[in-house]
């Protein structure tokens, strides 16, 4: 979390295009006043000049003294905009109107009453997975009449956003083969209790410990206990199960998709990457750990250690 206070040295002001038009109109008016030696036109000219100068003071004072604080950003999937929350606070006793926060060419409007503060989510587009640093933030204002444009030095926020790969369903989930074997092999490793959901006839693949033995005694039928959301099912999401025709990014996207689906379905899953495997588990920590690996695969410092 870093902060930034706008003082006199951090602030720049120049006329806008409309401001130059304004100057043009004033010079035409000056010509008229001189040519016709018309003192009232001179008076009007100077009123307009003074209005522009006062507007400059207003524009300057609309921005000076504001404080910016950046907050940690939440990770997002590639394709959805990353958001960087920034708190803008006005410690002065004067309200601020129409202040724009600009990052990477994207604008967010803010208006602050005296002594108030406002948190603004700066949205930035995500174009590749990995860490996305917040673009330098500028603050600008055209208040009050748009003839002057005041902007600040760049506020470089230390916050960064981790962008996960875009979840894409490119190939069907391999039902048989090595995947199944892995699943079976790992099935008994799991811990913890699941929610009871009901009974069903035994099928190949149901775990031994899930068989309801008392029912067998009564009905002579194998009945297994059903747990909610196939929670007892587990999937191995493996880099090696993907067809070799897929590129690296597509593989990551596909794995990401399965990961999201598995987490949604409440399944247990493990992520198998070359030289690095995250063991079967569930829950948000596990989920983000896996996504982390996918996001930084091959380029991030974390990813590099596993290469």
């Amino acid at each position, binding site marked *: 979390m870093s902060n930034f206070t706008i003082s006199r040295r951090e602030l720049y002001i120049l006329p806008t295009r409309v401001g130059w038009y304004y100057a043009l109109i004033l010079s035409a008016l000056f010509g008229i006043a001189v040519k016709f030696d018309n003192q*009232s036109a001179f008076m009007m000219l100077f009123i307009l000049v*003074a209005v522009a100068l006062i507007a400059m003071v207003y524009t300057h004072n609309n921005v000076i003294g504001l404080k910016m604080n950046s907050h940690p950003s939440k990770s997002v999937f590639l394709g959805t905009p990353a958001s960087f929350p920034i708190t803008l606070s006005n410690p002065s*006793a004067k309200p601020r109107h129409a202040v724009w926060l600009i990052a990477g060419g994207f604008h967010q409007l803010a208006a602050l009453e005296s002594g108030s503060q406002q948190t603004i989510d700066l949205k930035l587009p995500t174009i590749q997975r990995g860490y996305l640093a917040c673009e330098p933030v500028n603050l*600008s204002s055209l208040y009050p009449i748009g003839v002057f*444009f005041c902007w600040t030095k760049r506020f470089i926020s230390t916050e960064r956003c981790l962008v996960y790969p875009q979840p894409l369903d490119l190939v069907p989930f391999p039902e048989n083969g090595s995947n199944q074997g892995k699943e079976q092999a790992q099935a008994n490793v799991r811990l913890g209790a699941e929610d009871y959901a009901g009974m069903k006839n035994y099928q190949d693949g149901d775990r031994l410990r899930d068989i309801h033995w008392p029912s067998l005694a009564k009905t002579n039928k194998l009945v297994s206990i059903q747990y909610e959301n196939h929670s007892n099912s587990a999937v191995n999401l493996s880099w090696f199960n993907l067809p070799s025709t897929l590129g690296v990014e597509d593989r990551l996207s596909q794995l990401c998709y399965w990961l999201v689906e598995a987490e949604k379905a409440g399944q247990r899953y493990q992520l198998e990457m070359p030289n690095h495997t995250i063991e079967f588990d569930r829950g948000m920590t596990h989920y983000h750990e896996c996504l982390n690996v996918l996001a930084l695969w091959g380029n991030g410092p974390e990813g590099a250690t596993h290469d």
Partner: protein
Amino acid sequence: MIKLSNPLKQLLAKLPPMPSQPPAHDARRGTLLQLATLIGIAVLFHFSIANLLIALFALAIFALKTLIIFRKSSIPPRFIMMILTIASLGMVIYVYGGWNGQRAGISFLILLVALKFLESQTLRDYYIVCLLLYFLAASSFLFNSSIPNIIIVVAYTLATTSILFQISNPTKVPLKTTLSMSATMVAKALPLAIILFFFFPRIHADFGFLPSFDTSGNAASLSDSLVAGEMASSAFNNELAFRVAFKGSNIPNQSQLYWRAKTMPLERNFQWEVAEPTTRDFAVAADTKKTANLDSGEWRYDILHEKSTDKYLPYLDYISAASKGKTLPDYSVYLVRPEASAFSYEGSSSANSAASFAKPVDRDSLLQLQSKPNAKLQLLLEQWREGAENDAQIVQRVYHYFENTPFEYSLLPPALDEFDPLGDFMLNIRVGYCEHYASAFTIIMRMLGIPSRVVVGYQGGTQVNGGKFIEVRYSDAHAWSEVWVNGLWQRVDPTATISPERINFGMDALIELWDSGLLGSNNTGRALSNLLDPKGLSKVFRNLQDTWKNAGYQWNKWVVNYDFKAQRRLLEKLGVDQRNSVAALVTIMIVGAFTLLLFYFWRLIPRGLKRSDAQVQYLRFIKKFKRYRIEKTNSETPKEFATRVSSRFPEYANQIDSITQNYYALRYGNLNNESVAAFSSFKVQVRQFNLKRKP
């Protein structure tokens, strides 16, 4: 070279990259409707200034745009815009015969505003419309610089500024807040504008590409010819011609106020014309100028002349010296190039025909006539000539004839016979305005061999402040006669004998009499005394009028006529040497403007909350009890005071308690981020605290 460019590079490097401008939002419909109202008012004002056709066209375009805003439909396609633009250009050329002239300029401008408004779509378009509106408001001063007009223009500027406020702010702010914000800003701008106005050095330059002054047009002037019946029509023209301020205690009385503008020596069948000055006249004028002394006259005065295309300047008869124009041998004062706007000059005059007025005259040209006396008039002429000892006696006899014959003075004189207007007027109709009498008298003088001419100018004027100021209007226009007798030019005003009230009480009184139908009747005297009674009802009204006229005079003196010379005079008062006036002006202007701007920067910079701010509010709260003779003593703590007043006003006890607690928190508690908000609500709480009941 490299070393030189380094600082520049550093300077450029210091400026960080400018971020892109905020995205344009759509202008709100309410704002656009306000803008439409402003433009509508401008178009309506345009009806009073320029051509009806153009105003109607602008109104039609304006109506179309208003419809578009209301129905939220799209703007007309580009080719229609092109057609409209070409049509409006063609119209300006058709109506004014070209580009030149300020009327053509302002018509073009109003069409430009209307067309730009019609095609406006983006925010920037509306910005430009607003800027054009500023310009349009300013250019209205070319036609009218009066106080009411500047009040209208300042209000207009304010309204335009508030629209700029609205379109540059994407969030909607209540109209009242916007108006008060723009009013504060314009109010803050005014002192700065005043400094710039008084100290910006006035220069003279001609920008050829700008529209020039209309040669014919609304600027009033006295005609260069005197046609019977024409001047009478100006009797109801109440437009101001010039204002006079007399210096010193020497003030002429009403019947001495003959403002000489032009002499007319050429007669064309009962009409008179001005003779254009020759180079010889200018040479004489140059000689006169050398000896002229503004202190030589009996009366000294400043004249603030309204805008006029007239080449002859009015001065009080008989002139001793003039600060502006060339004093010609016929003692009219000629201006080679008429001023483009209102202007001022000084004059010095004396009551009697000065010795310097005796100049040899060209007798032959001053006796030339086109009119011929008819038989009856011939008889009269012989009567007057018979047995006269000198010219002066003849003049006396003719004057007495006018006095003793039943001539009548009328503001609506009947037309005269086309072929013998002189005979018709002298012998049959005998009803006329001043020009009839001046014309007839001068012709008769010439027929009797006395060199004479008609003088046209103004007589009288409205006195303000006991005659110190005089306002002369076009309705005061007057014509009289001048005769060359005993080697001097002598003024003879035959109107004075026909209608003495015109000369002694001025045109105002005369017109009031005329309106009440009393002019020329037996009741004239009584009606006049009623009118001029200082205790009458009209007296109060007159005083009010005097104040207003005085304000007008000061306004004209300090703003409308604030030219190069007035600026010099101001500098002189400030004790600046005249030689480096421009440098002094620029220095004062820059120093003054920067000081004020820095003051604004310092004063307006947003600051955090101070503990004393809470105290200011608390004192305001205490003051509210003053009405009930309750005051806080110095030894009393706020808490004690609260207990005391709560016992007097039990129904307000809660509020008093809350205010006191908030005060303690803000003044003595910890100040943090929330304090500012707490202070704002404390302020509102104090403001809304009102004791209504009498205990």
